[in-house]
């Protein structure tokens, strides 16, 4: 009888210890992420919303609580429609041409060729992502600036005998920033899609071949069918990051010439920190970026079904 009781006590102690460990593990694993998300997302969002209802400006003084920033955004800002149109074009073109399609082509191409050369090409495409943004931006400027020493003009001169140097930043500023961002964005899709392609079982390809599928049909029915979720994930993720991207634009074109490359993120920056120094109005504009951001992030959460992108742990941890 005593023994039975003792055993029950021991067992309940063990259970308690396991519970405690479970809790400790949770704190250890989720704690840092939780802190980071609060400090760098939740708190800034709250601060942003709070500021957007004030008249905070360069003097750093709040004199009234007001909705006039929102009134202005909805009715009074004549630049805003143009900015939104430019943003849609910039995000759409970069996303469709580079961040998905080109990334996919890179992944398909570098997995189809022998492994070592494939790895080499992928490494080359990763270089811009690994270099500091200032260096990357300077490389771009150095390549395309209007003087006859730029890479583009040297090539035009020496290879095509063209005497007149061109200035791509003046001629096609939008496409310059699309290319500059796209070259980096493509490598993101490339990495994710490469590993997704690698994980497709080889016998599926064999089966499809024996079932009569040609190369195109195999790519469509096996490879692309398999990449549907990763592609959706990349699409949403990259939309988000393009909406808020501004550092390369700022460094390469500064939003110009005139407003040709002033997309939404640049516009907020200019309104808030430019000569006008309207912090509160900038905060209100930023709020409109937070809303789609949160919606897309939640969508991403659903779409990615996390499990389909992450490997299950090999060991079950309690």
């Amino acid at each position, binding site marked *: 009888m005593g023994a039975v009781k003792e055993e029950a006590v021991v067992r309940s102690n063990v259970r308690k210890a396991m519970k405690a460990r479970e809790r400790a593990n949770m704190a250890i694993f989720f704690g840092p992420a939780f802190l980071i998300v609060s400090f760098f997302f939740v708190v800034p969002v709250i601060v942003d919303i709070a500021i957007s209802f004030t008249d905070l400006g360069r003097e750093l003084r709040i004199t009234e609580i007001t909705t006039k920033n929102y009134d202005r955004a909805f009715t009074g800002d004549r630049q805003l429609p143009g900015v939104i149109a430019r943003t849609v074009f910039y995000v759409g073109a970069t996303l469709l041409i580079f961040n998905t399609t080109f990334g996919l082509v890179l992944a398909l191409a570098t997995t189809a060729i022998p492994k070592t050369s494939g790895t080499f090409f992928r490494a080359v495409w990763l270089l811009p992502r690994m270099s500091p943004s200032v260096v990357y931006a300077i490389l771009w400027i150095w390549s395309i600036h209007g003087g006859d020493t730029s890479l583009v003009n040297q090539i035009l001169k020496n290879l095509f005998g063209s005497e007149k140097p061109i200035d791509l930043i003046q001629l096609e500023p939008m496409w310059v920033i699309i290319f500059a961002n796209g070259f980096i964005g493509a490598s993101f899709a490339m990495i994710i899609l490469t590993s997704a392609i690698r994980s497709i*079982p080889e016998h599926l390809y064999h*089966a499809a071949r024996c079932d*009569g599928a040609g190369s195109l049909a195999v790519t469509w029915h096996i490879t692309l069918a398999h990449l549907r979720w990763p592609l959706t994930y990349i699409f949403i993720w990259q939309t988000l990051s393009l909406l808020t991207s501004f550092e390369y634009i700022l460094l390469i074109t500064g939003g110009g010439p005139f407003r040709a490359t002033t997309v939404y993120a640049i516009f907020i920056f200019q309104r808030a920190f430019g000569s006008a120094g309207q912090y509160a109005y900038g905060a209100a504009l930023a709020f409109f970026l937070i809303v789609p951001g949160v919606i897309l992030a939640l969508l991403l959460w659903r779409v990615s079904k996390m499990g389909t992108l992450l490997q299950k742990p090999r060991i079950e941890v309690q």
Partner: protein
Amino acid sequence: MATIEFRGINKKFGDETIIPEMNLKIDDGEFVALLGPSGCGKSTTLFMLAGIYLPTDGELLFDGARVNEVEARDRNVGIVFQSYALYPHMTVAKNIAFPLRFKKTPEAEINRRVKEAAELVRVGELLERRPEQLSGGQQQRVALARALVKDPALLLLDEPLSNLDATLRLAMRTEIKALQERLKVTTVLVTHDQIEATTMADRIVCMHAGKIEQIGTPDDLYKRPATRFVAEFVGSPPINTFQGAAADGVVELGGARLAISGGANGPVYVGLRPEHLFFADGGIPAKIVQHEPMGREILYVCDTPLGMVRILEAAATASQSIGSETHFGFDSAHSLVFESASENLIGNARVSAIESGS
């Protein structure tokens, strides 16, 4: 329907030769099993038939025409993979219909044939499910339906039963066999399970390290194994083999002397199947060290002057227990003798007990 011929087929992966030289003919409508241990090149052979791998050398003929250069998709071959390889994002119906998409089959006919194929393997109710929602046995049937839906000239089965439980395996064995007999499609089954091969196939091709050891009916392989390897691979429980030296009609096996006929001379292997051994009052002494009940029979392992020997006895007449000392004899007509160096069967050689007094 098709006849198949391997003419001096050689297959290398890089520098490694997997199949040195294969010659084999398969008749129209025949059911052939490729039987051999893991890694002996069975799947490689099958994949060459499917057009997934190209032979390094030699000629592969379908109906007498060379197909080495014909792509997989133009060979009209249906294949069931060991893992089934169902397309995970397609429903069962789409999976089965997949081969027909590339044959410009009209929609209505696709539907009809998918239904037909699904009924054939009894997955008619599962057409709207996805592969992940199916059990192993159901997946296997769907894979079979997908292989059959295009009326293939050749059906290839790569260990189709190895992922199923014992009961289901038994049922599917019978079913596939019946189906093949009805459809009369030339079929090649790859398996490492001798029972699967012997119960399903008309002819068995026994392979070892990329070479064909023997081609024959299940009966041939069991009764007249061409090599020691075949004798040891086919038959369950496995055959007893003893090494010895034959001279002047007598062979020395460990501590025992037996008469040997058929002109065997020099070093030999003698093979005696457990089911052809029996306990007797006289003969070779044996001490029982282990017994394994196997249902209808009991397998004894005995310590004898020849070494450890497996003896099978009907459970109903079980006479021995562990530790008991007895004697055993053997059925001379079923004894097998192999030449030691080549390991080939010496056709008419037999061993028998030496008559006392001679």
